């Protein structure tokens, strides 16, 4: 067991999967010579060569669509989109080719591949280096969408993505790259896609989050527990297909839920979670489900006061949870 950061866990996963299976290759901007703008792919070109660690031109359309092609002839592409903000040009290839390859060919062609997308705020990135845009992929049948919050999950989910048989959008949160560290096993392990993690059991209220918001929620829980509120906390980890069962079971138990989302509220992932809870376990609810989300303005204004104001944080979560508890 070694202590590794979130980004080290990603590098390890890439390294080990490339060692394991020579069909795995990487393509993305600045990932080779430079080792990635955040150094996630550091050392990989030295080890595996320029044919398997490809420094791509500024061509997000091709990075996504070309990877689809490589998957069709039997490779296991792991493409990188440098910032989630720059995934917009790839939408065409992701939605119309990658997500639907199996469906539109009646299962004759398949498209097992992974797109790593560096995402998220609270790094002073401003409007164009803070986006996530996870909701677009969350709503697309045919895609798998994950967003780990711990080094263990970062490594285990990336391995599952690469080994799997389906197209995966793998979000990695840049704010977590070096801010979280934990011991992970030395031996090979994976984390199953589609299963949420109950990070903490509790009985008064269910809190649900993913990505950076897990940290904020855990922080809030510390305060809340001191105030005698017993919180159950679920880290979604996989956004599509999301783990309905774990969340619904928890709400059945606690009868209350607060959902935390970094991105703007309207049309986000937590709207679906909330709607499903109401649909499925309405009778168990003792209070309205509440969401704590990013502001409904473009994600994410640069100047520090606005960035801070935009994002959910422990204080906001505490206030909302207390309101729900008092209901």
């Amino acid at each position, binding site marked *: 067991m070694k202590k590794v950061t979130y980004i080290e866990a990603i590098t390890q996963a890439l390294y080990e999967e490339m060692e394991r299976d020579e069909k795995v*290759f990487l393509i993305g901007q600045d990932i080779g010579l430079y080792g990635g703008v955040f150094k996630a792919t550091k050392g990989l070109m030295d080890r595996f060569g320029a*044919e*398997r660690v490809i420094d*791509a*031109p500024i*061509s997000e*359309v*091709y990075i996504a*669509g*070309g*990877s*689809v*092609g*490589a*998957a*069709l*002839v*039997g*490779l296991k592409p792991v493409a990188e989109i440098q910032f989630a903000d720059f995934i917009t*040009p790839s939408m*065409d*290839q992701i939605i*119309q*080719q990658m997500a*639907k390859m*199996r*469906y*539109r*060919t*009646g*299962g*004759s*062609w*398949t498209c*097992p591949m992974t797109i790593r997308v560096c995402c998220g705020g609270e790094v002073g990135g401003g409007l164009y280096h803070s986006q996530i845009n996870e909701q677009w992929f969350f709503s697309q*049948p*045919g895609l*798998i969408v994950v967003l780990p919050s711990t080094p263990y999950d970062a490594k285990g989910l990336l391995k599952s993505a690469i080994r*799997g*048989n*389906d197209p995966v959008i793998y979000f990695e949160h840049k704010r977590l790259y070096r801010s979280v560290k934990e011991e992970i096993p030395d031996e090979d392990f994976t984390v199953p*896609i*589609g299963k949420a993690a109950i990070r903490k059991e509790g009985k008064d209220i269910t809190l649900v989050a993913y990505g950076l918001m897990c940290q904020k929620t855990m922080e809030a829980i510390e305060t809340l527990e001191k105030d005698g509120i017993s919180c159950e906390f679920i880290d979604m980890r996989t956004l599509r*297909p999301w783990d*309905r069962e774990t969340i619904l079971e928890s709400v059945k138990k606690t009868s209350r839920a607060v959902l935390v989302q970094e991105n703007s509220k309207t049309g986000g992932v937590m709207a679906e979670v909330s709607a499903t809870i109401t649909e499925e376990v309405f009778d168990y609810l003792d209070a309205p489900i509440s969401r704590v989300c990013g502001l409904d303005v473009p994600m994410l204004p640069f100047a520090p006061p606005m960035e801070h104001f935009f994002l959910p944080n422990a204080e906001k979560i505490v206030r909302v949870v207390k309101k729900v508890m008092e209901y």
Partner: protein
Amino acid sequence: MAEKKQTAKKPSLKQVGLSEQGLMDLYTNLLKTRLLDERLRKLFRQGRYAGTYFSAVGQEATTVGPTYGLRDEDIIAPSHREIGASVTKGVPLDVIIGQVYARRNSPDKGKSHPCHYGYRARGVITPASTLAGQTIVGTGCAMGFKILKKDNVVVAFFGEGSTSRGGWHEALNYAGIHKLPIVYICQNNLWAESVPATLQAGIRDFADRAKAYGFPGVTIDGNDVVLMHRTAAEAIERARKGKGPTLIECKTYRWYGHSEIDPADYRQAEELENWKKKDPVLRAEKFMMDLGILTTPKREALVEQIDQEIDAAVQVCEKEKYVEPEEAYNDVYSEDFPVWRDEY
């Protein structure tokens, strides 16, 4: 201006680079494509299947020529007007017609759209409608072949209108950097739906676009199946040897509307008449007859035989049913992830 411009010279059998039998096969595919296409148009007008139909009549040589001679594992990346590539790549007729009929026996089980001919067993990528989509994905296949160190090639087809798309540019640019084993066939039929090629680009010869990518571009007569085959075969050979891509622009013309519901009244009757005189099938026939390989009785026998083949395949498809509604739930993911089903 394109790097070289060729008009059809009368090549001898030797120049063609094909045996008599080879030439006959090439012609048979051309004729089969024509007969099948006209049949499918007729069946559409008779209301035998739903959706619409994109005829490629008039431009068969542009797909048949480059495809003939490819290996099974070589990849075809088609758009919507490449029925000739499927025919020539050896996709069974009932599979091709099945796709149009969208019944249970269609390779896509009726999920996508008629005219999206794909067939994995013969390396034909099923197209999505988004134009130039397969140019991008096909380029990715070529990248894959290179990484895998296989000596296979990709032949990607698209219309001149599709070259306006940004993704098309990104694909060819990438292929140029890495000298990928791919041949790009631009079927310039002068129109993209109702938009003339002059409103699609500020150049006349679309092969010029290759100059932006550092590989050869040639403009040729697309209605000469022999020239199409020879030019493409050379490019394919180059690609197979690791010498990189070629862009081949072939000037041609679609005789009918963009799809069967388009009267194509934006075009001048004269333009069409002129192009009909350059019918690629008649031209090939004349060429073969001049060479003494084809005779009228032989041709008639061939037509008869192909018609019977088509009849049989149509029969198969007519008898097929649509899939059950619940088929909609399949093929979203691998079996690892079942689809959520709501009961209404």
